[in-house]
């Protein structure tokens, strides 16, 4: 219920922002039992990079069309 509610609240934002938020939330959920998550910034950076690369690829595909 909350996941759906959260998704609803975030629909006003662009798709890549929604994707990024949901993926980061899933990561934080998995690691909630750690007080300090090891290498947390590197792992968040990986997620951000993947979303950035996907967005770039999608833009490139649009330009080609």
């Amino acid at each position: 219920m909350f996941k759906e509610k959260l998704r609803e609240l975030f629909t006003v934002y662009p798709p890549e922002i929604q994707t990024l938020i949901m993926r980061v939330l899933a990561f934080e959920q998995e690691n909630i039992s750690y007080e300090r998550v090891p290498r947390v910034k590197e792992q968040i950076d990986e997620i951000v990079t993947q979303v950035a690369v996907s967005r770039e690829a999608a833009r490139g595909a649009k330009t080609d069309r």
Partner: protein
Amino acid sequence: MKIEKLIVENFRQYFGRQRMEFARDDDKCVTIIHGVNGAGKTSLFIALNWCLYEEGASNIGELISKEAISRANAGELIQASVELTLRHNAERYVVRRSLQGVKGTNGKIEGYPTASFTMMRIRGDGQAERIPNPVGTINSILPSNVRTYFLFDGEKIDNFAKPEAASEIKSAVFLILKLEVLDRAKQHLKAVAQDYRHELKRLSSGELRNLIERDEAARAAQERETASLARFKQDVESAKRKIADIDQKLREQQNAQNLQEKRDRIERDLKQRRGEHDGIVSNIRDAATSAYTIAAQPAIAAALRVLDEKRERGEIPSSIRKQFVEDLIEQMSCICGRSFTEGSPEHTRLLALVRESLPGSLEDDVLATTAALRSCEERAARGVSDLDTLMKHRTELVDIINALEAELDDIGRQLKDSPLEEISRMEKARQDFLADIDSYNVQIGSTQNRLSELAAEISNLEKAIAQARKEEKRERTLGDKLELAQAAADAISEIYEAFADETRARIEAKTKEIFKLLVWKDAHFQDVRLSSDFNLEVIDRYEQPARPELSAGERQVLSLSFITAMSRISDEEAPLIMDTPFGRLSSQPRNNITAHLPELADQLVLFVTDEELRDQSRQNLEPRIGAEYRLEFNPQTSCTEIVEVTKTQ
């Protein structure tokens, strides 16, 4: 999540392997586990917490069954384990945590037992596959920080109803409603955005543009110099052609023919001599390069003297002598031919001689070094002689070249001073062309130098530009990432308060609904409120806060209402597992609660004493009970057996 089966093995008072299955149908979703005080209800409750989260098992003594330890022999391996089968989102999982230890001679487990934790997913075909990240998977099913609201200790049942419970309520709301997850996500995204910002500032220096401008300038200069070089070379060729024409005309001139032909011969000879001279200079250079032995000559001579002196004094052991002594020892016979035995003074003396001498390879090394040094000496001597010869040859050539050049100058003067104007004019022009060629060659030399420098500069610039291009691409990507991370952090900030407030309102409404259902004085209590500062309050019919006046039972009902409201509203689909929830309730509230509790959870597991569940409260739950167990404690063995209660019993 629904739990299906629990297997305990040698866990606390549960000796051997024992199992129970939980009710999980929609209509029969209640499992009752009852036993007297000390029978092992709490141990099973602990087993669930320990299996899933490795929690709840500290300061409670030995986890491994004492009966199992006492029955084992010293040195024998004993294992305690808890295995839980559960279902979540149509997937079946088996979670297993175990402890292994070896029984020592003192009758106890030696050192610290070895723990292991595994989680398997059971596929549709029945095969099990291991989950690589069991902790993360458990947290995604039922996070450890909210487990106490689902795996519920009944002795703490009225905690939330206490006046000082605001912070505990806030913490519960924060955890169950993912606010902690949102908060962490926001903080971490802000932190990485800040890192991106710092990195971007570092990269944005305009260096690439600067490098490209320098590269363009260097390449333009290179083109210009290349064009100049080509022109100079053309000019040289043109001057040479003109000189050749003049030479031809002079050959055809009767009064100049002899002199010109002589000049031709001298120029051919000069060309050859100059070639020879260049060869000699190259040989001298090579000879000088390998003439280091000449410079090292004094040191080589000194080293040879030292080695010879040491050899003469016998300070360098002879390998022949060592080998000779070893042969004597092997033959057990002295140099005079007399035999000796092992352990005799002669034998001992010979062994000592062998030990005291240095390894035979030392003399070989000394011999090799001496030979190498002597060969250096010889090479040095040869080198000196060769260099001497080359230098003499060069000197001779230089003299010849000088003489030839002097002859050429003389011929030139004679032709220039010729009484015939045409010959004089042609010779003058020829000399002018020769001077031009010299000048062009100097220009060519300096242009070639500049071109080499430009080529090196362009090569360095190309490398720097490639690196700067990489940095620029990184800069663009960083810019994108900063934008994304910051936008995501801002989005979470924007919705956080609205989400938290809306959810608080939902919890308030659900708590009120459940409270009205469970409390027996529902007409007296009008409302339940959860304020924005998380104060849980009950409002009576007079519109007054009634919490200070709540009885112990009513406080417990309020707490239970809050907990079950949270569990219904949260995303966590989990069973409600309660350890002695009714222990402090009188019959009326107990009856009311048991009448409605099964409606508040998809799966309900109750650990109860016989006193807790009887008469009306038992009857209320009866239609929904799908499994029932009795924990039978044996005072002789101090062990508990899980006994299934069937309907006929």
